[in-house]
């Protein structure tokens, strides 16, 4: 029985699988930029970070290069990155006693060490680091998103069912004294990556803007150019700041097709395509990193405000970036479907199980396990 085995299935390591990235000015009123990366969606209590993965935060200064219909960012080359690495716990077989140590290596040469799940985190050289299990701050009704796409009609219920209710993730939070540690600013582009460690690290995944790969890019059926292409693996392997010319047209075609589909859901066109069939949001979303203005005051709802300001040829007023508990799905569907020209689209899930805190490490403590293990 145990011998019967006819080939390995693709088994991704959950500890390398990113679910969300956040960037916001410190809500504590200090001159700090906070960045967070979540991996291992729906993690059970025994979850640990991988010792074979580099968890990387990359930050570059960015400026607004163009506004209006050709809105675009110009990304600087002066990058500062933070590589978080984790050890194998000495008692890793013992659920109770497994204590994992981590370190954060800055590209500028400094190192900060920390212990996983220590809420105080580690601190040094202008950076405070936390890593550990937390409540997933995101909330959405995945089944109704799927139903919306399958039925080609908005399928959200008045009271939805939060797919992530009561679930936990592994989080890494960096609080960075940006004038000291980063270069340029105050407008920054932030992207996170997981890489297979080794002499030549290989990118496993990259993440910047929320719900690009799943909600925006995953549907193949609307894309007449690459109908059979599972585009996400290719997309993940790209450098967010230098997308290769080999596949950029494939990504563009997928964005154009899928964004055009979402625009049909209210029966009117809010995002007319240009003569080449490009959707007005495509170029901005292809710049797949969070753009955050670290000089602005913290706001809970500011995702994409900088980009919207650029499209309307005005100055932005919020920090942009992304706060932990922003109702992202409502925002995204409203943006994609009616461009804000109609009523706000509500997916029926308006809050996470636990609100994040305004104090480091911000994400709420992990939820208790819901079921006994098999």
């Amino acid at each position: 029985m145990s011998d019967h085995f006819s080939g390995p299935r693709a088994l991704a390591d959950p500890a390398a699988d990113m679910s969300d990235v956040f960037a916001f000015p410190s809500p504590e009123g200090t001159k700090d930029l906070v960045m967070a990366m979540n991996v291992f969606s729906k993690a059970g209590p025994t979850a640990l970070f991988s010792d074979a993965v580099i968890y990387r935060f990359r930050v570059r200064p960015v400026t607004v290069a163009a506004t209006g219909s050709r809105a675009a960012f110009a990304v600087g080359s002066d990058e500062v990155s933070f590589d978080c690495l984790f050890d194998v716990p000495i008692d890793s077989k013992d659920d109770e006693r497994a204590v994992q140590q981590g370190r954060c290596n800055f590209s500028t040469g400094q190192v900060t060490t920390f212990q996983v799940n220590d809420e105080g985190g580690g601190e040094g050289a202008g950076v405070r680091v936390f890593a550990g299990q937390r409540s997933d701050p995101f909330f959405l009704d995945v089944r109704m998103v799927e139903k919306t796409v399958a039925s080609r009609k908005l399928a959200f219920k008045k009271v939805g069912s939060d797919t992530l209710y009561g679930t936990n993730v592994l989080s890494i939070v960096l609080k960075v004294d940006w004038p000291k540690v980063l270069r340029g600013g105050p407008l920054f582009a932030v992207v996170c990556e997981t890489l297979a460690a080794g002499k030549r690290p290989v990118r496993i995944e990259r993440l910047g803007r929320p719900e690009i790969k799943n909600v925006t890019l995953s549907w193949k059926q609307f894309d007449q150019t690459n109908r059979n292409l599972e585009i996400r693996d290719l997309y993940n392997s790209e450098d967010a700041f230098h997308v290769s010319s080999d596949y950029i047209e494939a990504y563009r075609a997928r964005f154009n097709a899928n964004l055009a589909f979402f625009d049909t859901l209210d029966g009117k066109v809010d995002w007319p395509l240009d003569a080449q069939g490009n959707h007005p949001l495509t170029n901005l979303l292809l710049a797949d990193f969070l753009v955050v203005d670290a000089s602005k005051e913290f706001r809970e709802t500011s995702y994409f405000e900088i980009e919207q300001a650029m499209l309307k040829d005005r100055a932005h007023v919020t920090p942009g970036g992304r706060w932990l508990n922003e109702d992202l799905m409502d925002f995204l569907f409203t943006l994609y479907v009616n461009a804000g020209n109609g009523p706000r689209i509500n997916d029926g899930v308006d809050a996470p199980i636990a609100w994040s805190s305004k104090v480091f490490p911000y994400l709420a403590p992990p939820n208790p396990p819901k079921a006994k293990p098999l």
Partner: protein
Amino acid sequence: MTNVHPMPTPSAGWPQTTDGSIAARNLDAQIEGLQADATSGYSTAEARLRLIDLLVLRGRVLGRIADYRGAEQLANRFVRKTGSAESFLGRARIHALFHRFPAALDDLNIAQALSIDRTTAEEERAAIFQGLGRYDEALALRQQAVARCASFESLAALAGLYAERGEIETAQQLHVESQLRYRGVSPFPLALLDFQFGQMWIHKGECKKAQNLLQLAVQRLPGYVPAQGHLAEVEAEIGDAEHAVARLYPLAMSSDDPDYVSQLARILRDLGRTEESQHWCRLAAEIYSSLLVEYPEAFADHAAEFWLGPGANPHKALELAQINFATRKTPRSHALLSRALGANETLRSGIHGTDGL
């Protein structure tokens, strides 16, 4: 499959994968997280299918039949509750796991008729054909998969098929090539592949080669129970029976798969530790008998091996070898049947010989 490079070894740190103890904890953590959703009704079809796959993976790695049963219950419930394409795909995988191949093909056909894409269906079908011993059909599908996308998964699956067909040279080349294409950090796929090739060398009687690969699998995943079990088998074969016994004891005590109990009984018998052997023998007979009631197709081959060996019941072994051969027409099932027939023949001639005296 053309340019074969010298394979870097894990001892040289290539490819670096997540430490086995972390990976095992994280597998539990994944299962627990998804199980909580499944019981509270928040689960998507994709998440339920994933949970089934993860339970099977844990069963495979820890040698835990309880996990296979858990996956089976989940798959049945999934079909009853949703009747979705994913649910039939999940149940097809479980049927194949328990060697109920015709039922697996039926479920796969339903899944495909509902909405599972052709590529996924063909990969599953190839695995079922391979299980059935319909190697030519499996080979055609596996080769198509490689032609579509020469990934770690498609090359490793093709390598495994060649290994099972006994085409060693091609299998080895593909084994190396698939490893070179591995881009993940999970240790499971590489350990499972090394284990599979370790088994290939055992069947070829190449104990040292088998030992090397099984040791690599155990280095990646120290808790990999079937790899530990086969290492013990190899150790006994090369004359290190004491080591083998020491390795097998904890497996026999912790695993609900009677394979380790059976092996321990055999090695202890060969060492002349008859009383101890008999204890484990009785236990193995009891567990196999119980499992054969529920899963005759799945356990017929190993149970036949047991009754041909320490169980010392060639007649029962022949019955089981016949069930196994009716289930899957592989070279191994044929060889097992031949051995069982031979053992019964020997027994009969012994009896007749005694009668004649």
